[in-house]
């Protein structure tokens, strides 16, 4: 696809990114503002630990952060700083939000990427095999698995995996990202959740492809079934699966929040939960913003990939 096709898409994406930033930032801001409980006390608790929270500490925080400023000033301030990419600094750790996020983003991205690729390794391949024989035993088994995986909360799944691989087999470290291979179990936990759905998508796509005229034609042309699958099946199955990645990104983000906590993975989801508890508005805004933008970026990539796979998408 040449430039004149890409440019409008790019602009559209940029617009979306802008909207996301606007929405996320403002929404988080107001919500955290409106939350019950005294922010000064919350933040103080976040900083000094809960039984060191005294009115004195809270007052100190209030003054330091100017929490009693009127909200328009605070919001305007946030926007102003956002313009030159300054997300402010965390109210709990007093570190610049960008710095904190920069630290946490790395692990999260690594985790997500590994999870994504693992899920793509597991899900679609099984799905294609299942789709080759709809109603066959593999189809039933994968269906059962995907349903049960969807019913299993991530933390429970993670726990089971740890019990199996770490405690019983002693094959993988349970947690602690410093340990070599510590990423595997959290990634697997996420990947299984994702594969559960992508497997079915691939399966259905495969069934459709098998029923298609062009697949039949490939066979009557004289290609062997395996050749037909390799040349005309997979690519056409890949299209819907890739398109589905966009949706999976949402699941991934949600999963990351839980899985990172379970496996003590120092990522952005973990940080988000903390920020919400600590009423750390800049952090919440920052993390949500980054997550949102990541989502936009990822979707843009997915679109590009779809266009690459399916020429019809390029028009």
């Amino acid at each position, binding site marked *: 696809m040449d430039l004149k096709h890409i440019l409008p898409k790019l602009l559209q994406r940029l617009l979306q990114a802008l909207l996301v930033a606007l929405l996320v930032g403002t929404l988080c801001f107001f919500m955290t503002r409106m939350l*019950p*409980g*005294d922010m000064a*006390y*919350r933040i*103080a*608790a*976040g*900083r*000094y*630990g*809960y*039984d*060191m*929270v*005294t*009115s*004195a*500490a*809270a007052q*100190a925080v209030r003054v330091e952060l100017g929490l009693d400023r009127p909200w328009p000033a605070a919001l305007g301030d946030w926007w102003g700083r956002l313009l030159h990419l300054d997300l402010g600094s965390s109210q*709990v*750790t*007093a*570190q610049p939000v960008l710095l904190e996020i920069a*630290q946490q983003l790395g692990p999260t991205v690594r985790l997500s990427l590994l999870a994504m690729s693992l899920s793509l390794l597991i899900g679609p391949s099984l799905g294609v095999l299942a789709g080759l024989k709809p109603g066959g035993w593999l189809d039933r088994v994968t269906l059962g698995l995907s349903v049960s995986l969807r019913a299993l909360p991530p*933390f429970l799944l993670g*726990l089971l995996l*740890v*019990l199996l691989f*770490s*405690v019983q087999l*002693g*094959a*993988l*470290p*349970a*947690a*602690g*990202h*410093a*340990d070599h*291979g510590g990423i595997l179990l959290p990634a697997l936990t996420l990947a299984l959740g994702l594969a559960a759905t992508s497997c079915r998508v691939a399966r259905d796509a495969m069934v459709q492809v098998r029923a298609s005229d062009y697949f039949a034609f490939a066979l009557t042309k004289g290609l062997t079934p395996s050749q037909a699958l390799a040349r005309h099946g997979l690519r056409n199955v890949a299209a819907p699966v890739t398109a589905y990645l966009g949706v999976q990104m949402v699941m991934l983000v949600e999963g990351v929040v839980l899985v990172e*906590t*379970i*496996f*003590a993975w*120092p990522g952005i989801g*973990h940080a988000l939960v*903390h920020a919400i*508890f*600590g*009423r750390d508005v800049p952090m919440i805004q920052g993390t949500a913003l980054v997550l949102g933008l990541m989502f936009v970026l990822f979707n843009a990539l997915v679109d590009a990939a779809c266009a690459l796979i399916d020429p019809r998408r390029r028009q």
Partner: protein
Amino acid sequence: MDPHPIARRRRRLLALPAAAAVMAATPLAAAPWRSAHAHDDGHAHAAGPLGLVGSDVLTVVGPWEMTGLDPSRSGYMFARMEVVQTLLEVDDDGQLRPALATAWHVSADGLQWRFALRGEGRYHDGSAITSASILACLQRAQARPGVLQLADIATMTLLGRELLITLRRPFGPLPYLLTHYSAQILAPASFDARGNVVAIIGSGPFRIKSLSLPQQFEVERHQAAPDTAAGRLVQRARYISVARAETRTLLVQGGQADLAFSLDPPSIRALQDSPRAQLVSAMLPRTTIIKLNAGDPLLADVRVRQAIALCVERQGIARALLRDPGLGATQLFPPSLSRWHDPRLAPLRTDLRQARRLLDQAGWRQGADGRRYRDGQVLALSLTTFVDRPELPLIATALQEEMRQAGITVRVVIGNSSDIPAGHRSGLLQMALAARNYGNLPDPVASLLQDFGPEGGDWGAMGWHNSEVTGLLAQLATRPAQDADGGRIQRARIAAILQEQLPVIPVVWYRQTCAVSRRVQGASIDPFERSYRISRLQWT
């Protein structure tokens, strides 16, 4: 479980010889697991194929995250990993011990405190531990939220190698304040121009090797110590913050962690006969209490408070939720606080019938729907608690049901720990369930002054004032901390009044349990949780 790992622990209170004895001896036999002071059975265990076999890094896991380098924030972690030192130390018996200060004495009027500072000694960066650097740290600590503000300090000055602290009012426990991590001593190079902490350069046996906030940091011995006959001493260690108790347990079971702190009861049971780890435990002066707003019209009547106290099935909660019947509180102060624990006090009882009777007397009649009414008003209370300590919501739920049996409608509000001090200030709080650490400072007097002072305290009484208690506390505060037995009468009286008046209702006491991998020996729990004592640990 520790879903909200912003939980913080504070130092534990003096555990006196008696307490140590108690801990080592009988009650622990009764306790659902065998007390293990880890230098026991020598049979070492292979720590799993992956685990940490061969690796000589000791891994410590706990729920606490480092929210910053500033001593007032995560200073306790660096103290526990023996990176930093304070002016004074306390030993297991709660006696003050010299550290960076070698000696101290107080003037007759109790206003002038002199601390003789050690001459030699260097920080990890090689710079000398100068009196000036010490003074700077203390002044910095005083300016920030922390315990130093409890004492009414007028000035801190240097007289040669002596530190002179002048108070406006006598304050006996002052030396204990100086053992608090928020008063830890860092090298001048730790601070940037604006006085922010940019590095942790202490003077402890271990120095920081690498820091990755908020989740972990690694330390190594400053001066490599020779291996003793007993075995190789731990040279390197790291702390990893692991939010979930299950995960910590699994790490121990998987041979990935050598010390795991703050385990929840189910995990403790899971670890009891683990091939990889053994359990060490100590009773700590932390009591889970119901904080009552005696100023609230519904709770103003002491009979209602007593009724609530009578509803609480302390033994049941201890057995079912903490899995340790010994922890049911018979009074506010646990036995480990033997100077304050008064065995002769009539223990708190559970007596539903009596509770009902009291409520009836207070004019709360049970309606058809089981709830209690007084001239049209229903007896409905809110119980605020938080998830920093996973057991709290569970206990709150239990209490809710127990009070319902007496006809008291309770709404459990699970929020953020800070809602309690905030609610205390706004006066809107009705009841709160919290774990109060009377070892926040080695001498509980300071804490009690906070909690039961004239206008009550964030974590203590609310809308309750008893001039006698205030007076007694004032007397205790002014007398120097040394003379062990002075003021027994006052303490007993205070305990008695609290037992009778119930400004706060004790529910259960607390026991710290730590899982220790069989790869190491020599582990023991610091009753004050000031230190993990990794410098004493040896590989088996």
